[in-house]
């Protein structure tokens, strides 16, 4: 029993590491073989088989911008509400928390349907960066709220007591004490949301659309990096190489966000309560 457990554990552990290495290694190797900086600066042509991904990077960034612009205010205020006023309105607080948990469990394709129904059709934005960004905002909301709330709750009660004893209004206390203290958590929340948004594909397919040229405005359709990978690998024969290279860019971006979180957690957080 002991040796069986030991061997199986080692087997699974090693196999999983090898597979991970294979996936990442494959992408890295193929991408490096065909590497050129121009890839990031050119526009795609021949349905993406050739050329670069510059407009796609721009579209992705624009979608991210919209999401963040929507998520941050709503997320912050929701988190503040949950921390500051959670004592009194018990029933509705419970409902709100459950909603947040359910939101995080909803499949991404359902978000896509919702985004399509609300933003593209009902509000008339059509297939646009705006629709995509807003849909992603709702997807990232639970994550951001949870992270921000943890940050707000980690403010030591001493600070709140001192603020009250000085006759400070709640508004001032929030603005000058609580939010600055929780800034590392908020930062981590933003980065986590970016990570989530970058990886998202299904929700964007029919909200921000497929168009691979440079978007002219937020109402224009734009393609994200993840959709580009999907299109190149499934719909474009011979698009493999560029799909590899795009995957490489996407992975680098995601790894950077992960690394950022870890550095923030290690340095900025040393004096604060861990997330």
């Amino acid at each position: 029993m002991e040796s069986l457990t030991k061997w199986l554990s080692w087997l699974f552990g090693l196999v999983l590491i090898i597979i991970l290495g294979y996936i990442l290694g494959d992408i890295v190797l193929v991408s490096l073989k065909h590497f050129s900086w121009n890839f990031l600066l050119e526009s795609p042509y021949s349905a993406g088989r050739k050329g670069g991904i510059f407009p796609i990077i721009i579209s992705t960034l624009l979608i991210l911008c919209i999401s963040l612009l929507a998520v941050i205010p709503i997320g912050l205020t929701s988190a503040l509400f949950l921390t500051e006023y959670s004592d009194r309105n018990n029933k509705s607080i419970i409902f709100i928390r459950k909603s947040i948990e359910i939101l995080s469990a909803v499949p991404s394709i359902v978000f896509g349907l919702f985004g399509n129904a609300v933003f593209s059709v009902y509000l008339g934005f059509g297939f646009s960066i705006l629709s995509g960004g807003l849909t992603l905002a709702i997807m990232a909301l639970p994550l951001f709220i949870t992270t921000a709330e943890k940050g707000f709750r980690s403010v030591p009660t001493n600070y709140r007591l001192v603020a009250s004893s000085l006759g400070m209004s709640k508004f001032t206390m929030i603005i000058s004490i609580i939010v600055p203290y929780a800034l590392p958590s908020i930062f981590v929340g933003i980065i986590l949301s970016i990570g989530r948004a970058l990886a998202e594909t299904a929700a964007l397919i029919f909200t921000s659309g497929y168009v691979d040229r440079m978007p002219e405005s937020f109402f224009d359709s734009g393609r994200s990096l993840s959709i580009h990978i999907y299109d190149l690998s499934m719909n474009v024969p011979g698009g493999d190489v560029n799909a590899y290279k795009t995957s490489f860019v996407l992975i680098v971006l995601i790894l950077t966000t992960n690394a950022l979180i870890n550095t923030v957690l290690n340095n900025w957080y040393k004096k604060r309560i861990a997330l």
Partner: protein
Amino acid sequence: MFQLTRNRQDFYLKFFLKLNGHFSLLAIFLIFAFIAKESVVALNEHSSSFFLDESWFPTEGKFNMVPMLAGSLFVTFGAIFLAFPLGLFSGIFASFYCPAKMYTSFKRAIELYTGIPSVIFGFWGLMKLVPLINEFNPPGQSLLAGILILALMVFPIITLSLIASFEMTTTNYYKVSESLGLKKSTYIWFILLPSLKGQILGATILSIGRAIGETMAVLMVCGNIVKIPSSLFDPIRTLTANIALEMAYATGSHRSALFLSGLLLLSVVGFLFFLFEVFKKRFSWKV
């Protein structure tokens, strides 16, 4: 300059925060509402055809969802069947057999798995796994490919939950077990894991929810043929992939039927969530 008195300031603040705070509640409500609204057409016109039509031929008004439901269920449970031992043993490896110096790196590696986008899993599956399966039994795009890729995507949920539980368990039990001369494996299988039954169940439910909702990876490796699979090597289409493939050009009752399948997915996930909450209360474990 309009100066609010401090009390007035706080009053408006409370109102503003309360309003925004309820946004999540509003969002979830709106999601159910809009999806239900869009499904109404299909429900009214074709309520029985979802199970009785010959197959899914939307252009001809045939909307049998059963093959795709079957596809989703088979791929999900196949993946969980694989992911469970993967997660269990990798968790045991990390906490008991992995050399101490490698522990953090191994944990980071598993966390890396969760960070890889589903599109990239699907892409790798398409490039490497599907051709491999194709060697044995063409075509490579199949239920099996879906199961394998989905298992890889979902096992970290179980692993990381286990590792977190192991770290939190009072180390006393291990000390007692050692002092009685019990083997490590006896400790793991007869003492530790039984005491974590609740957490393991919770992680499994989360994994099922994740697997059923997955779209891109299964879309890319499963072949997308609408047919109840008769073997592991048959191509299948899941409910999620179906929506992704056809939404772009669906109109009228076709579109409505797709929304209906979305509603079905939402209900399944909602049910799993409800199950999760019930178990949490009954066994009062922290996940």
